[in-house]
């Protein structure tokens, strides 16, 4: 069964897998998380806004993103981003966009919908009295959000945000459909070049498992540390 399992192909391709592939995956995960949380928080504030139009628009955006498969969204943005770029820069032709920028835009906008729901739950978990008290001592609404509500909401939601980041890390493997050299893409390219599908895919699965498992155990520790005892 595993008699002709070739460890050597894995060892030989390690630099390519990690230097090219994993760097792409981790950079994409990190940037999309930061962008997604920032945009997601803005969306959450919009959803909770008392301005009807704003909250309806944010809700529509979140619901749209959450009812469509990520794969379809990756295709959407792959073709759409050049046009958005053209519109933003006022160029005569749709601009050329590399797969990294395209995936980064996709994941930021897509994951923002999920981060929005997390932040909304976080903001709503803060007792109403806090906002009332902040306004009563003379803070403006933006100041109250910035200094009172959001820091607490953020702290409460750190474990959930990190869990979502682990999901995002796993989801980045889907850029495979654009033939991008992320970690899985790199493994797949070696697998097909050398005819070593079994070795490369098992190794890729093991690496993803170890990273995600270790990270989720880490989240558990953080969850215990950050929990506010009431």
């Amino acid at each position, binding site marked *: *069964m595993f008699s002709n399992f070739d460890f050597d192909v894995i060892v030989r391709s390690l630099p390519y897998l990690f230097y090219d592939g994993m760097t792409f995956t981790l950079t994409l995960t990190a940037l999309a998380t930061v962008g997604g949380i920032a945009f997601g928080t803005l969306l959450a504030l919009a959803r909770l806004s008392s301005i009807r139009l704003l909250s309806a628009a944010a809700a529509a955006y979140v619901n749209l993103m959450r009812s469509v498969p*990520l*794969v379809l969204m990756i295709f959407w943005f792959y073709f759409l981003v050049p046009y958005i770029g053209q519109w933003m820069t006022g160029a005569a032709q749709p601009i050329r966009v590399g797969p990294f920028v395209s995936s980064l835009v996709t994941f930021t906008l897509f994951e923002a919908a999920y981060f929005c729901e997390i932040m909304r739950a976080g903001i709503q978990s803060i007792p109403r009295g806090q906002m009332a008290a902040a306004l009563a001592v003379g803070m403006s609404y933006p100041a109250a959000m910035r200094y009172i509500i959001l820091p607490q909401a953020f702290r409460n939601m750190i474990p959930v945000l990190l869990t979502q980041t682990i999901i995002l890390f796993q989801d980045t493997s889907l850029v495979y459909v654009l033939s991008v050299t992320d970690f899985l893409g790199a493994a797949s390219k070696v*697998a097909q070049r050398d005819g070593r599908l*079994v070795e490369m895919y098992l190794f890729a*699965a093991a690496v993803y498992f170890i990273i995600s498992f270790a990270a989720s155990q880490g989240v558990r520790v953080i969850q215990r540390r950050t929990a506010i005892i009431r």
Partner: protein
Amino acid sequence: MNYHWHWGILAELSPDGSHTYWQTLLLGTGWTLATALAAWTLALTIGSVIGVLRTTPYPWLVRVAQAYVELFRNIPLLVQMFLWYFVLPEVVPARFGTWLKQLPDASFWTAVVALGFYTSARVAEQVRAGIASMPRGQRLASLALGLTLPQAYVYVLLPMAYRIILPPLTSEFLNIIKNSAVALTIGLMELTARARAMQEFSFQVFEAFTAATLIYIVINIAVTFTMRRVERTLAVPGYIGAARPLTS
């Protein structure tokens, strides 16, 4: 924008010679739903068993079930699909492997199995949460009445647990429909794959993707609407909302 819109493309004949582009999208929708439903059956069955095992009083069973959940939750779905499709036929005995490779609709069955196992880990977490959310007295009382442990699960704990976790199960079902799009990587011609094919043949990118997006939204709304009604019928007074989705 200098994109040339042409919505009439949907009514034009696709390169397969017998269907319009719109009809190919509908065929894809059929595959999406078939894959999702078959995988959901598998996920619900296995997920329930694993979820129950995680609440049994036997530590080793709990640990085995926990390992199962961690295994299927920490590997990306796409990688799992490749493992089932490319790796499994190579590592099983040669005769069985050949049979697997020659299966008609191999990508469909692979997608069903991969999605089913992937989702079963999530269902197991929900089932566990549902059982754990009930007062301990329910289990103790049923055992005290003389029910065996399996009977306590079948007649007392599970009927309540399922009704409590219906809302999170609905979102898992919506997830399985969306996740079935990943199967395009192993050649399943489901909705997203059909939209992609239409884009490649007709060059009308945005019409193809808009149509697919609308179909997904309609499916989503239909499922949500149906499940709301089911939830309302099955709601246990004073219990709904007791089960919280797990955060980790």
